[in-house]
């Protein structure tokens, strides 16, 4: 693959700060991680849901105008998703995604993504 347009880096667009994410997490209130599903189902489900994220977010840590979703805890990821769903955080793309997921699915995909870079 040749280097080019898609590889351009934009420093100023390098995602949300941790402070923003934590602030949003607190604002989103309590979030329950469900632990009662079988691990295999969780992994398959997590991978299938994460496939949706991979259409826009790089899974190799590369970062640019679209923030990375690696290196966050499941709680942080889940709370960010809930904040998008409630419009507390603006982004119509993330809102459409978050609205399509149940709380349990958000927990599943968050666990899966958080485990990716371990």
């Amino acid at each position: 693959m040749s280097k080019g347009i898609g590889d351009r880096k934009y420093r100023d667009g390098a995602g949300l700060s941790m402070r923003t994410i934590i602030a949003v997490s607190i604002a989103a209130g309590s979030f329950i991680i469900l632990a009662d599903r079988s691990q295999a189902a969780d992994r398959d489900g997590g991978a299938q849901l994460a496939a949706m994220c991979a259409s826009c977010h790089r899974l190799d840590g590369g970062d640019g105008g679209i923030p990375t979703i690696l290196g966050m805890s499941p709680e942080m990821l889940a709370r960010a998703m809930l904040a998008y769903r409630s419009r507390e955080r603006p982004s119509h793309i993330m809102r459409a995604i978050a609205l399509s997921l149940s709380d349990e699915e958000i927990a599943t995909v968050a666990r899966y993504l958080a485990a990716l870079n371990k």
Partner: protein
Amino acid sequence: MKSPTRREFGYLTGGMTLAALGPRLAASEAKAKVVVVGGGIGGATAAKYLAASARTIEITLVEPNPNYTTCFFSNLYLAGLCSLESLTHGYKTLAQRYGINVIHDSVAAVDPVARTVGLKSGPKLPYDRVVVAPGIAFNYDALAGYDEAATQVIPHAWNAGPQTQLLRRQLESMEDGGVFVLVAPPNPFRCPPAPYERASLIAYYFKQYKPHSRILILDAKDSFNAQDLFLDAWERHYRGMIEWLPAQFTGGIKTIDVKERSVKTASETFKAAVANVIPPQMAGQFTQQNGLADKSGWCPVDPITFESKLQPGIHVVGDATSAGDMPKSAFVANSQAKACAFAIAEALAGSERVPPRLFNTCYTHLGPDDAVSNAVSFKPVAGTIKIVDNFVSQVQESAETRHRTAREAQSWYAAFVRDTFGYAAF
């Protein structure tokens, strides 16, 4: 039956532990076989996600071209904002890291009784399932005066590559003050905002290098996608440069005169310095010849598995499908291909399944630093696919928001081509 290797599933999707994949194990006769027809966005994504989700499936991807040039962002190339090489991607990663058997050939026919796929060069490949993703074909019968040979004089540039280069060369050699005529197709067609994005970005190019030139869009329709956003941008960035004539104004497009480089409508003949004719479209030729397309010219599919409603065991994804409310976009092709791959993995390798997630996200450039986006979620309903939520950028957005969206678009491109053609390395 559950696959013993299922536990690798997720980690492979991201390519994190791909080393564990290869070399693919022997005993291939015991493995289920999937043949993917077409290595464009739909086909490449389906092959990659099948490889990632089921190690017990042997995947063959058949694609005639050694490389794939993306249509998305090719309008930026036409405006001189990026190279075509930067939009061109190979199949090495899919072959080497994902263990996919990539064959550079065309599929001539599929035999659903013998369950074989016949290659143009002769061999027949046995299959348990086929995924067909041949993109679009042009319906030249529906546009008088324009055919395959005409594309060498008046390009469509609706498949990216030599056609796009030809149009760029013509724009570059056009004298200042010329009229660029773009003929926009009837619905449904590949990427609804793209003809108008093309007009916007060519106007950007003219504004800098040929400021006396004009753009005339002769449309087969009376309205178009995100019209308010485009009209607003044309007024702000390119005032007086772009004229759009709907079918109700011209009476419709009648004939293309290739020699004269002119377009005849019911009311008037328009002569062009450079012309771009985007013809009416239908599902890829292969589907027309193999009983996969219906009278509409498109392929009806199951909204959950993307299995053809006409030929069991054969799945169709991407532009070739008629998939309810889903538009024909690369994002949709990628989204459908994932749903299809997971359905096949479930059927052939017993992986667990969550309900399919179907989305479209489109980034559209109105100028290099002015982009808008659209996000739509879909859901299977009663045999078809319906829109659930639809969010679009607004006309009054700040320049800063638009600039940020343009940056996001760049970042999307990088992630999306990796998601489709694989991560070369982590």
